[in-house]
């Protein structure tokens, strides 16, 4: 069974260590906050100028001046901090964020990522995604393994304009957890009940299968 979005988030949450400063992108990454164990203390960074992002507000606590990078109303935890955009990206660019999780349209076997533009169709802009992928040592991409037509999104070469080149090292899809090295996509874990063969058929880029591939534990 392919993972649900919630399960992708759940698997990524297992990668989080106590004390991490984390930037979670829009979409699946946002869900991760729900799966961080109580004894793992992390601090959420939102690139519009917030550390210590708390849960969404109750009705009476909505504040137009307090939003996250997805423009959603949020709250701040008691030990949080606000700061300006140049300081916020000094944190990102300077490598102070321990983990970045974001979505993607495509990832290539060289670690390239495309996530911001579909020429002629969708031009929204890269926001902070280019800064994040260029800076983070520890990035996880959360994405579907294939598109709605069943075509692989893990490619030999990206077809869309890049967000970053040669920067992605770990991916969690609905089918698998993969790491990237100089050879391509290294299959590390299968989604429960998903066969290696299915993953192979769903992966256009070079897939490295070494030894027995364990099922994910969620």
């Amino acid at each position: 069974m392919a993972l649900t979005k919630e399960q992708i988030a759940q698997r990524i949450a297992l990668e989080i260590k106590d004390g991490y400063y984390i930037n979670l992108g829009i979409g699946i990454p946002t869900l991760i906050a729900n799966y961080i164990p109580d004894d793992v203390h992390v601090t959420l960074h939102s690139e519009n100028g917030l550390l210590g992002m708390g849960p969404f507000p109750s009705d009476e606590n909505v504040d137009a001046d307090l939003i996250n990078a997805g423009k959603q109303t949020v709250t701040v935890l008691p030990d949080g901090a606000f700061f300006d955009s140049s300081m916020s990206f000094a944190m990102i660019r300077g490598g102070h964020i321990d983990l970045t999780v974001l979505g993607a349209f495509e990832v290539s076997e060289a670690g390239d990522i495309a996530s911001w533009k579909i020429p002629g169709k969708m031009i929204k802009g890269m926001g902070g995604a280019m800064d994040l992928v260029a800076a983070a040592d520890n990035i996880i991409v959360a994405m579907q393994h294939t598109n709605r037509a069943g075509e692989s999104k893990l490619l030999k070469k990206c077809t869309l304009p890049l967000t970053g080149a040669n920067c992605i090292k770990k991916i969690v899809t609905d089918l698998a957890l993969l790491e990237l090295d100089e050879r391509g996509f290294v299959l590390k874990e299968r989604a429960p009940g998903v066969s290696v063969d299915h993953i192979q058929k769903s992966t256009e880029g070079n897939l490295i299968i070494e030894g027995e591939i364990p099922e994910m534990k969620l």
Partner: protein
Amino acid sequence: MKKVVENANDLMYLLKSGMTIMSGGFGLCGIPENMINAVSDSELKDLTVISNNIGVDNFGLGKWLTKRQIKKILASYVGENKEFERMLINGEVEMEFVPQGTLAERIRAGGAGIPAFYVATGVGTEIAEGKETKTFDGKTYIMERGLKADIALIKAWKGDDAGNLVFKATAQNFNTAMAMAGKVTIAEVEEIVPSGSLDPNHIHVPGIFVQHIFEGKNYEKRIERITLSNQI
């Protein structure tokens, strides 16, 4: 040298068609609503606009867009504005996408007398096209230029006669760097407070960066995505 004026209209004489204008805010959070409205009520045109976002269809900088007052835009994300996306796909407006962190840093650099600096952001992407590259410690970086504006329009929570500003929560965002980068910086605030009532330790933007200030009226402070705890 009185910095305080009554309202946005008192400062409109400073703006001219063809100028480069920075406008603070992230999404609709912390945008200079009064000045944005005054410009959209004016006949100004051919503006080059530097802003992280470009408002929504009928609010914020989206108003300038609808009125065709903008010649060129530098921004990092315009996804909330459908009309803009349509104009862009059809080539009706000139656009330079700038990664958000690079945009913030280019603006700060412009204000800090730094004509150029190097970042890894965008290396290997179309953002790097036509830009000088340089290798430091084995890693490739691209050169980005500082940005200045003829006029910076910013919005703060409180301000005093001297132009000192404080922000609330995430409404600070691009306003601080833009205050630095404006040849003339106009700050609108929710409340002008008496001189001496702001703690000198808590000033986000020292008054040296602010040439004109006024108390804005009728802030709508529209929220793009009200997300509540009981909705999750």
